[in-house]
């Protein structure tokens, strides 16, 4: 494995363009402020601080849901409920903490319960898709509506605030000056990555995403796999919810996690996983998540007016999509031939 090989492999990966886009955005910010990339110890809080760390911290929840979404999309499904599950998880934990004392045990109970509820929602999604045979889009759309309602019911519509130092530490704590939440997020990603790639889970998920009928004939049980995948997505969305509410120790039932499903889907697709399902790239989803966090931060850093923000994002997305497209790449490296017809296979 020499450097040339590595470089070639990297270029072949579709998510390379997400990385390039991140670098470009960072460069733009750097032009705006030469000290942008500096990471320094904050004299008051004695923790590391800097824009890069801010980006990483903000990427943590997106990272979680993007990883879950990546697996779901790979089975040729979709999970629109992740944003609402975030709200549910936040609501459960905040409601519990607001009526408890500030003891660490309360925090652990809250975390466990929140994750349990989130996973249950995921399981329900999975059952509806795999056993009842509903379409993933509509199933999770229903769950997106119902989930936000459930969050509101849990807090009786209030934006619940709570105090608990242990819980707050998740998103605000530091280990050796480094934000805990990033470490947690990366650890979760690593675990998921290892589980799907070191076992045959990933291969089987891809297989049912590409051709469910053929997979069944091979002896793969799509049902169990689908339920697992949706549950994992629910669980990860629950974690994302915890990350989000613990930053501000408030759950905002109508805002927490709202429209986050779009961010997650975008991250996954920019990371090179096709929405039609099949081969997935967790690394790509991670890169996509970082790109979205960087983009969000850049918009604010550059002071793009609120009214122009969506257009700005649109332009960035379109540009990335164009760069990723075979056609444009064909123009760039004109040596490669482009088949007149896409190799896209009609999915049965």
């Amino acid at each position: 494995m020499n450097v040339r090989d590595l470089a070639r492999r990297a270029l072949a990966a579709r998510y390379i363009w997400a990385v390039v886009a991140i670098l470009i955005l960072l460069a733009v910010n750097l032009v705006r402020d030469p000290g942008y990339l500096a990471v320094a110890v904050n004299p008051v809080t004695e923790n590391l601080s800097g824009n890069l760390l801010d980006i990483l911290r903000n990427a943590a929840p997106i990272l979680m849901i993007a990883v879950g979404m990546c697996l779901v999309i790979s089975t040729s499904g979709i999970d629109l409920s992740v944003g609402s599950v975030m709200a549910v998880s936040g609501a459960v934990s905040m409601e519990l903490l607001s009526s408890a004392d500030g003891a660490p045990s309360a925090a652990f109970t809250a975390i466990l319960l929140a994750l349990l509820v989130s996973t249950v929602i995921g399981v329900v999604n999975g059952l509806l898709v795999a056993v009842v045979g509903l379409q993933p889009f509509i199933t999770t759309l229903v769950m997106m509506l119902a989930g936000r309602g459930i969050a509101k019911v849990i807090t009786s519509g209030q934006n619940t605030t709570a105090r608990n130092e242990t819980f707050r530490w998740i998103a605000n704590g530091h280990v050796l000056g480094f934000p805990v939440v990033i470490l947690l997020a990366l650890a979760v990603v690593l675990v998921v990555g290892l589980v799907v790639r070191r076992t045959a889970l990933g291969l089987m998920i891809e297989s049912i995403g590409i051709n469910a009928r053929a997979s069944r004939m091979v002896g793969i049980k799509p049902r169990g796999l689908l339920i697992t995948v949706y549950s994992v997505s629910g669980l990860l969305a629950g974690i994302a919810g915890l990350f989000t509410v613990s930053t501000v120790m408030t759950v905002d039932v109508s805002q927490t996690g709202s429209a986050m499903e779009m961010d997650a889907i975008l991250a996954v697709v920019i990371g090179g996983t096709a929405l039609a399902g099949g081969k997935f790239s967790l690394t790509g989803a991670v890169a996509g998540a970082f790109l979205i966090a960087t983009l969000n931060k850049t918009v604010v850093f550059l002071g793009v007016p609120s009214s122009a923000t969506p257009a700005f994002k649109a332009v960035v997305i379109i540009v990335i999509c164009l760069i990723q497209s075979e056609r444009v790449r064909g123009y760039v490296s004109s040596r490669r031939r482009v088949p007149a017809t896409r190799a896209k296979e009609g999915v049965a």
Partner: protein
Amino acid sequence: MSERAPIVEMRDISIEFPGVKALDAVDFRLFPGEIHSLMGENGAGKSTLIKALTGVYRIDSGSITVAGEPQHFSGTSDAEKAGIATVYQEINLCTNLTIGENVMLGHEVRGRFGVNWKATNKVALEQLARLGLEGLDPTKPLASLSLAVQQLIAIARAMVIEPRVLVLDEPTSSLDAKEVESLFVILRRLRDEGVAILFVSHFLEQVYAISDRLTVLRNGQFEGEYPADLPRSVLISKMIGKELEAFRSIDMTAQASSAQRHEATILDAEGLGRKGSIMPTDISLQRGAVVGLAGLLGSGRTELARLLYGADKADTGTITLRGKRTTLGSPVAALDQRIAFSTENRRDEGIIGDLTVRENLVLAVQAKRGWMRPLPRKEQDRIVAKYIEELGVRPADPERLIKNLSGGNQQKVLLGRWLATEPEILILDEPTRGIDIGAKADIQETVLKLADEGVAVLFISSELDEVVRICERILVLKDREKIAEIENGPDVTSQTIVGIIADHGAVVEEVAS
């Protein structure tokens, strides 16, 4: 004939896919009023040449002339406008639409209020009638048809535009003798009307029966253009690029296994049936025996096999496996019982297109082990290397996506997939479909070898010769019902079976065994 100007002339055509030179400076000429067979092994580049002609693939170099004019088609529709109708190797129809629509899509009869469905279906039915399918109801969904009939539908579709050039890529791969004969009648008539026909098939008899001229490709290269009276042995050696030696084995193995009888029943099904697909049927399989299922299209062979594998649930009947009553509710259960089933529907139920050859090969083994116990990479490589070598998959690159393999090579990979599970019962539904003659012999040999090792094989094929050649017992199905079960012997030929099928109805009970 050669004085006339060719209607299609392809010169110096090259196409390169990443890692494979699929076509390398190939020339091809097609004249009006001829049936021209394109010959070559699996992966020789036949389908690619056809797709180059119709513009599905863009050519890297070379020129295409149709009726004297240089052309650069950008897809089937362009080609159709120039009078070239094509039936591609993998049946490309829309299963969500009706039969009539599939025949007529893009050529619907239009009236004052848009498409006139009545007239459209009428024309569709006329086209179907030309192929002897007048019994079909054009308003029924296509999905209700078996693969073979779908293949005929695709041909009917191609003839709707009254083409000047008709391209048929392995149109007969799932047809039986009767259908082939009626297809040939039509092809001959079209030829006499001046249509140029490009024909691809791995059945030499068919090629010789219908062709006027041949073009042989080997490894993506042009081997030569010959009149159709080329001796078989010469043709074969041109295709495989070596002398015929390796080839003898086919005849030697013929009916070799019928010498001994096998008694060790491993699977015994009684009254196995499913409403609407197959009547209650008895079937038993023995260790070391190859049992054949013969019958015409839609006779229910596939259906029976699916019940044995648990792909469909049986409504009636019992299965006794190794002496124990079992129910096979799903493929998983069947795999656990060391049953393997290679489907006839390669594209929809076989290959997992976006996975590599390696992944496709090990998938069944992996599924048996469960996701928790991944097959170590070394083990995977061993299995893959073994079957790529044994079955002669080309290109022998395990990391290539299976969808980019030629049809025949995909079939070989699928066979490898099932062999890798080391089954005790192997159900093969049309395993040699689309396989070149060399490889076909290899596969037959493999099947016999497996039987010798004690595997019980259920062998389904539309090619009766093949069934007769390697099976020791043959079940004959007709209209989704078992009508006979015969012991193979020196006096049994494909004609015997045809006779049984034809006589059924006249003679009520056929002697069993």
